[in-house]
């Protein structure tokens, strides 16, 4: 099946599934994959910390990196994924150009992600982070292949 991950959402899949997310600007796209169990999931989180809006975080934890990342791992574990085998890739976290710190939400998203992964002893295998492009991510759960598209350019992550 093909799943589309909306902003502030998460989807998991098994062999044969494809997961796609569009228009990653400053949001974080996180893809995790177990190549033995052939299960994986993708998160599209908008903001770094849920304390900014606890009510919203209750209704929709995947909007926030601090709640969404543990949520994604849990869902993939529930499908049979094992921590030691997981391949973790990140994309997005872009920013507008210039020096206005207020709009560096992408950088803050990335910082929170790195802290969470570090605390849990997890390494990013690959990443395409930052810049000011809009990214679309395709994640093939049969093979674990992750491709990134922006405009007319496409590449493997």
């Amino acid at each position: 099946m093909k799943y589309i991950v909306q902003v502030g959402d998460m989807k998991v899949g098994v062999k044969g599934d494809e997961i796609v997310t569009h228009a990653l600007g400053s949001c974080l796209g996180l893809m995790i994959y177990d190549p033995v169990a052939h299960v994986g999931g993708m998160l599209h989180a908008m903001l770094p910390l849920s304390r900014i809006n606890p009510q919203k975080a209750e209704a929709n934890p995947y909007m926030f990196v601090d709640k969404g990342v543990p949520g994604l791992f849990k869902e993939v574990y529930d499908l049979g994924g094992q921590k030691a085998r997981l391949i973790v890739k990140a994309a997005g976290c872009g920013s507008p150009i210039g020096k206005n710190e207020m709009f560096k939400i992408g950088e803050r998203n990335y910082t929170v992600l790195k802290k969470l992964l570090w605390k849990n002893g997890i390494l990013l295998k690959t990443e395409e982070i930052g810049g000011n492009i809009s990214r679309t991510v395709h994640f093939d759960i049969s093979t674990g292949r992750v491709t990134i598209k922006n405009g007319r350019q496409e590449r493997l992550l």
Partner: protein
Amino acid sequence: MKQDRKREIISRIKSFPSMSGIAAKALKLLDDPDANAAQVEQLLKQDPGLTANLLKLTNSAYFGIPSKVGSVRHAVVMIGWKKVSKLVMAACVNAITNRQIVGYDLPPGVLWQHSVAVSVTAEGLMRELKIAESDEIFTAALLHDLGKLILGGFVEKELDEIEKVAARGIPFQMAEQEVLGTNHAEIGGLMLESWSFPTELVNAVRWHHDPDSAPQTGVMTDIVHVANVLCLMIGIGIGVEGLHYEPSVSATKRLGIKPTQLELIASQTLEWANELAGVFE
């Protein structure tokens, strides 16, 4: 050469299917302290399609009206004629933006979603910053990218060149300016000017990417500027140019906005925008 190109682009404004008729009249009603519900109803009699869309918007979750509204008169009673006039504007904008925008790589519906998202974000920012409510900010936000409707075809032809210029680290609208002799904000401003929209509104559209260059700085321009960048960041209406725009440090200072306020609004924007923009899906 660039001047010829600019002239050619500007000549398209005259032949653009005008939304001036009903939209401009709705705007006049908003400005007129003596206006009333009957006038709004009279205005809408001319266009049943628009009336149907207005009622859809009124019944959207964004307003949370408990019972369904079935007539313009009832809509006015429930949410007030000012809000109804604003929604007339939204229905007009829907009619012209709910399609694919070539050049900017926006699929059908995305510019409409973006226009609504920037409008509700602008309103959210006004509430958060305790700025007196202004119906014109909602309208300016709705209309801010109108210029893309005309400029898109030209951007499509010159995209390689524009991207090459933008890659030097300058904002996308300046790259448009350099290659085409004009940019989508200027064209949007000229469109509204040709339809006799109020100057403040024209300026908010004209300078939405560069509020510091406006002849006069203003809350309306600053709010639309911030709301627009924020919506692009969270992926609503982000096109071929990505985040290749520069948020003004002075504008955020003038507004006195804090990062936490910006993030709080961002966390609400999607829901508000879906409630309002989703009624036509």
